[in-house]
């Protein structure tokens, strides 16, 4: 009896170890004192963090990634929220068509999106510019904003808005006082997803960042081609902490919105 119960638990434990181990190992390696990649580290230190914070190249890429992601958040949240409000009220045929266009980046393999964007952006003169990255990343981020705002909209009782209107609110007043506060968690979750989508994006950046707009994931990729030294582990650890905190916020917000 005890064996029959302990065995599945051990099995699941091993699978969970498989899930967590790689991330834990990267975090441990980032505090290594060795000059090459080895596990377990011979001793611990902050050497690779000081390399990262002392490197203009790494810091420049970090700032670029952060502000490109911030611009993507503004653009994707604004366009996506407006579109979600509009699409919910479109006639069915148009709604299906518009949703298909907006959600398709989730289905089309990212390499196809990346080379398509590269093909056109080369002609638009957008390769190697932050603007090119912002436009491309916004297209990839928008599906998350629209689905998340849409889910919030679906949970709203339409009578609330009607009540506001019948009590004399203007439609714009009703939107800002009733609808917007109710969908705010959905908008925020969408914004967080938009940030992460841009901040972590690599495949499109590989093709269009050129030498003028090297994002953080792009610099990590370039670095990995030459050497696997622990600086990347330090950068990875920092991005893991950032994304886990943001996604954790999105998860909790999403839960609260659903409740």
């Amino acid at each position, binding site marked *: 009896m005890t064996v029959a119960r302990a065995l599945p638990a051990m099995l699941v434990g091993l699978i969970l170890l498989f899930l967590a181990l790689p991330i834990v190992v990267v975090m441990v390696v980032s505090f290594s004192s060795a000059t090459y990649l080895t596990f377990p580290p011979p001793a611990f230190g902050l050497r690779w963090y000081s390399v990262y914070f002392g490197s203009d190249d790494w810091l420049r890429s970090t700032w670029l990634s952060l502000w490109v992601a911030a611009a993507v958040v503004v653009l994707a949240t604004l366009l996506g929220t407006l579109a979600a409000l509009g699409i919910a009220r479109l006639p069915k045929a148009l709604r299906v068509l518009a949703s298909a266009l*907006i959600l398709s980046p989730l289905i089309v393999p990212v390499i196809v999106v990346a080379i*398509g964007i590269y093909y056109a952006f080369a002609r638009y003169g957008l390769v190697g510019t932050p603007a090119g990255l912002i436009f491309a990343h916004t297209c990839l981020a928008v599906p998350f904003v629209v689905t998340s705002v849409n889910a919030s909209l679906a949970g709203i009782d339409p009578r609330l808005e009607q009540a506001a209107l019948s009590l004399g609110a203007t439609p714009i007043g009703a939107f800002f006082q009733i609808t917007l506060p109710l969908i705010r968690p959905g908008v925020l979750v969408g914004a967080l997803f938009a940030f992460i989508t841009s901040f972590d994006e690599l495949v499109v950046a590989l093709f269009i960042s050129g030498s003028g707009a090297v994002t953080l994931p792009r610099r990590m990729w370039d670095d990995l081609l030459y050497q696997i030294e622990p600086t990347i582990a330090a950068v990875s650890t920092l991005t893991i902490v950032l994304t886990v905190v943001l*996604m954790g916020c999105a998860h909790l917000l999403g839960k609260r919105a659903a409740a």
Partner: protein
Amino acid sequence: MSEGVEIRFEGLAAGRQSGVRLPWRLSWRPVMPLLLAAPLLLFMLVFYALPVLSMLMRSVNDPSWTLSHYASLPGDTVFLKVFSNTLYTSLTVTAGALLLGYPVALSLVRAPRYAPLILFLVLLPFWTSVLVRSYAWMVLLGRHGLINEALLAAGMIDRPLRILNTPLATQIAMVHILLPYMVLPIANALRQIDPSLARAASGLGATPWATFRQITLPLSMPGVAAGVLLVFVLALGFYITPAMVGGTREITLSMLIAQQVDQLNWAYAATLSVLLLATALAIIAVFYRLPGVGHTLRASAR
């Protein structure tokens, strides 16, 4: 509702000038949702849809209208090898993710005390970028990585195994990266099973295994199908992981496409892209016809 406001003012103004009343407002009302959606739709047309479509068109109009790029694919040994390798990788990764994902999904639903911890461990890799996770596997599987060091220390091998830069490394890392996409839909389907069914089965004398096999497993199938669909389609288009840990000998379709673009061989890259996209869409179309899959997918997307 938000859509009436400017229109109403405009309608009244127009009405006063021309002597016509409400029709303005009535005819504007259905246009407002379109105006709200238009900026995004235009943006995506210019920066996403037209770029991708114009690139894909290179497969039929390079140098002039022709289907020759498609016609030569069945005799193209490089393409055939890469395509079958991509399908094989996606299949093994899907099977691996199902094998590891089902028990985790089951424990997520059956062990409520540990559910928050299990959910965190499932979501942790989900929230970490593919690049970082692929790098983590480079660290683990390398010559001096954790796996080799552990096996050497345990005396199970005499010299480091070559795992990094092999198809096995790609498969291990991809199962790790895609596992959450399998666990979440299956857990979702399991949660919707009425617990009284299992109680009734055991009350009628079924063993736990028979209850699982005859009640739980069949009723969780929509979740399994949704997970299989997600993992398989995502695996088909994987680029970063195979390029980082899989070596250069056995490449995937995505890697071949990227190579062709580097050589400015746009017609071939576009043809391969159409094929990759068509394969993904065909699989999605087949799975959506299975009962319950669409619903489970939408439910787990939330």
